[in-house]
């Protein structure tokens, strides 16, 4: 993936003057732009912030939000929180895995969808819960899965 170094520097400059949490904001913004953290981008950040590359590599691999591999256009997060688990998150997850032909943590070959596991989206009273990009779907059942995927395939949200 081609990185626009000047854009990355632009992102860094937005946050560089506030040390509290700047790494989090910078990486989050880069991740949103490229759908992952390209190595080149991380190197630029390390250089500009004057922090060791290993520190940033650690951060990139430590937090669930960051990825060193490009994610799909759409991210489906299946909540496996306690209540969702008790109420059938496994069945919902299996349905997605079947429909998409991938396992949790993987991306479809056409890079359309990344299926992820998340622990607690905070809508426990309405379990099972998933999110499709930023939209939360509650009371999920396996039978609703094909339609959700259909909507993503047929023109995107």
């Amino acid at each position, binding site marked *: 993936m081609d990185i626009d170094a000047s854009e990355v520097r632009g992102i860094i400059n937005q946050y560089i003057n506030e040390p509290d949490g700047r790494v989090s904001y910078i990486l989050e913004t880069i991740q949103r732009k490229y759908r992952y953290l390209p190595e080149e981008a991380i190197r630029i950040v390390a250089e500009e912030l004057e922090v060791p590359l290993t520190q940033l590599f650690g951060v990139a691999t430590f937090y669930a*939000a960051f990825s060193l591999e490009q994610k799909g256009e759409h991210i489906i997060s299946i909540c496996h929180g306690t209540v969702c688990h008790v109420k059938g998150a496994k069945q919902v997850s299996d349905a997605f895995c079947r429909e998409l032909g991938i396992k949790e943590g993987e991306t479809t070959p056409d890079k359309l969808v990344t299926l992820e596991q998340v622990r607690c989206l905070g809508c426990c009273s309405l379990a099972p819960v998933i999110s499709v990009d930023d939209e939360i779907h509650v009371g999920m059942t396996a039978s609703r899965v094909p339609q959700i995927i259909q909507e993503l395939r047929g023109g995107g949200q």
Partner: protein
Amino acid sequence: MSILEELKAKGNGSLYPDKVKILVGRASCGKASGADKVYNTFIDAVEQQGLDAIVSSSGCLGFCQQEPLVAVQFPGGTRYVYHDVDVDLAGEIATALENNTLPNRQVLGKEEEDELIVYGTTNQFAKKTNFINELKQVPYLNKIPFYALQVKIATRNCGYINPASLEEYVARGGYEALRKAVSSTPEEVIKEVKDSGLRGRGGGGFSTGQKWEFARKSVSDEKYVICNADEGDPGAYMDRSLLEGDPHTILEGMAIGGYAMGAETGIIYCRAEYPLAVQTLQKAIKQAEEAGFLGENVFGSGFNFKLKIVKGQGAFVCGEETALIASIEGKMGEPRPRPPFPAVSGLWGKPTNINNVETWANIPPIVTRGAQWFSSFGTEGSKGTKVFALVGNIMNNGLVEVPMGTKIADIVYETGGGCGGYALKAIQLGGPSGGCITADMLDLQVDYEVLKEVGAIMGSGGMVVMDERTCMVDVARYFLDFTQGESCGKCTPCREGTKQMLLLLNKICEGKATMADLELLEELSLAVKDAALCGLGQTAPNPVLSTLKYFREEYEAHIIDKFCPASVCGALVVAPCQNTCPAGIDVPMYIDAIKQGNYQESYDIIYRDNPLPATCGRVCPVLCARRCRRGLLDDAIGIRELKRFAADKVFAGDVKVTPPAKRKGKSVGIVGSGPAGLTCAYYLAQLGYDATIYEALPVAGGMMAVGIPEFRLPAAVLNKEISLIEAMGVKIKTNVRVGKDITMKQLQKDHDSLFIGVGAHKDQALGIPGDDLNGVVSGIEFLRDISLGKEVDLTGKTVIIIGGGNVAIDVARTSIRLGARAHIVYRREEKDMPAFASEIHEAREEGTQFTFLAAPLKVVGNKKKKVKQIVLQSMELGPYDRSGRRRPVAIKGAEITLDADLIVPAIGQEPGYDKIDEELKLNKSRSNTLVVDKRSMITNIEGVFAGGDCVSGPATVVEAIGAGKKAASAIDKYLGGDGVLYQAVEPERKLVGAVAEAGRLVKPNCMPLDAKRLKSFDEVEFAYTEEQAITEAKRCMRCDIKESDDDETGSCGHCPGCGC
């Protein structure tokens, strides 16, 4: 006018406008339930249709399961809250409002006053509204069970203000506390917080005031206050609700904290998974800055304070203080050893104080109302209130804020409404760091120390209710999976320890573990708890230790019996129905055989595991159907009716039984010819043993023969099944009462092993004056006499039956057929009756009268000492007992007198032994049942086994069958065999023919309810017709078919056409 007064005036105008205001709950739960569409419907009504109203949004009122929640408020302030509002109802409300009325459906409650916690005052609203049809019979919102026990201090504004409105926040007392604080000294503020008794609400439970004091004492040019809004506990979301519903309370709390501790910078560390919370906070910070509540020279005090937001990028461990700090510093969230504590050296090495969202939210009211007010709530050691996320298998799901010291039973049964039909099993408190409590511990109060003592924790307030459908081993595994994945990896005990614990738990759930593994798991748990660096590792073993403490038997079942009692662990479960059946019948396969038209095959499959299919097909309570997955979609499968269909079909023709050729040359004596004894004898005979049953009564069958009436189980059907058992080689000697006609010692001489299955045939006495009068007949005796052919005419007589179980119902329906008026008296309510719902229904249809909440006081006789009347004590429902039902309590002076000819107590049975228990010196329990090893069914006497009702207490036919099989296997082992009852062959499980996508339970035909039926002892229910049977069989979803070999998903690998 000061800034506060100015904003307050605006806010009041916005809170209580002089037109109708519609407030739609649009926090995350609301949005996810469709609140945005509802909101837009109202906006349209105003903009396009000219509805004269203001439409606004609010945060979460707490009753999340009933979202979308909409409050319709009238000028003056009275408001009605609607629940489960969809676009249609919204449209109806809008239309009705135009006619000065409101629809009277889905109204949760009304409010005619508004308590302002910060001020300690209450706004009373005018009771009159200018509205023609005031809604009738709408309860006050704060009196409905969900809200009745709640005291909203932290969540005081959620659902009442628009979180985007600073003015509304101020109008309800906002920033008054900050003003007061900065005009006092920091020491005064800290003292107030200390004296209030507030303890950390994130889980640590440390004294907040003391923590503030430490931070204040540290000398430094820079200090930080931080809000921990990482809320990583799965199942807890109260912080999210506060951030989205009342962001300013956190800002204000933190500003007060900053002032008290001498910090000029505050950071809210909010997890990125809460985008709406982050947005809401950003807006609020800007507003507060513009108003001067944040920034330079707050309230002219010289105090400067700025707030910023840092996002957590997805790591549970960052909920731990030092890991959180590392995260803000741009590093991995690895905890650091303490000391030094953050109050001394925290963020960037400066003194730092971190508090949880809910803790901050409590600060403003503590400052305005004072420590004494706050500490008037709660217990000695735990003051104030706590917000709990009451979720899981509970009727009323949502966020509840109750005073500390509230009993958990009250939260679960009153506020939560109980589990709804399923038995409560455990409550998980405190998330992955917490532990569970069991159903008989619900008298516990919510208090930090009380919960710690029992191995649980308050934690962040997660309260996950689990019922009988939950496997506690799976729960422990689930939590370990979580904490192991979230372990930062820095310290060996956590990194390696949780991994190994998880591997062991996986092994257990797959049925591959040994008892040595269990020991190792426990040892590891204690080691990790002791040695881990931070709270994550130190508490990760808690769910394991807690479930081991209270559910050890469940672990042992997985290990020793390779059995998952809750039917959850996929590797151990064929299907929930088969797994739940005490006899282990391969339900899906026999249902499929019927679907394919192979009735003999269906019968054979059943018969392999149950030698009484025609009987069970009529009387089984189908514990299996309770777990039937089809029941989640529409109705559970008619498993019992299908069993009967197969049995009746085969019985219509010739049934052959072939006794084994090879004999063992050993003999077993069985006492009692009930289902336990018959089953035990049958399997032993099949293995080649000589089995002889000794039966005291003139007929064989135990309770099946003399307890269950003819119209439910015809003697002809039962006797046919018994004759097949005899054809297998079992000898039955009736009219032989062991203990009287023959001694146990003699039986021990005559046989190589003995099985006792004497059942529970003794009715408990009423124990009241007059219970020995002529005309008081025990339920069992009554039914037995009729079954044995006694001629009884009860024409015109009144029979009063005391009890609520199947015996009571059977007596009532039998009495009616003998010409009597039947009247059942039960001490609790109908929904608490242990009898089958269908039986209660039939009894009522046939004319049985019912009186609930009444208990017998005395029986009154006439001069001839014959029953004349019974006097009953009226009861009302008192506090909850361990079974989750409310205990009936006498209403003083309230009595009912009923005329009666016959009084029949049916209040419970216990075993009678004819002294054979004394003869052998058998160990018994407190309820007079025999004590046996639960796996081998052996008593304390060598070679003597027991099972059925005499061991379990009154239970069911199928459970007795299961016990008989276990005993047969154990006796075979005892006598030198391998304990294998038959060679099991794993059938090919595949779906042939589609599953019916829609369709309710097919109901079998019955005798029409007319005068003829009420005089007849003929069977009331008929067998399915062939068409009915096949239609019903097609509804089975074949949960026994797994997708692939390594598929361990629950108990159904794929759902061919299901929506569960």
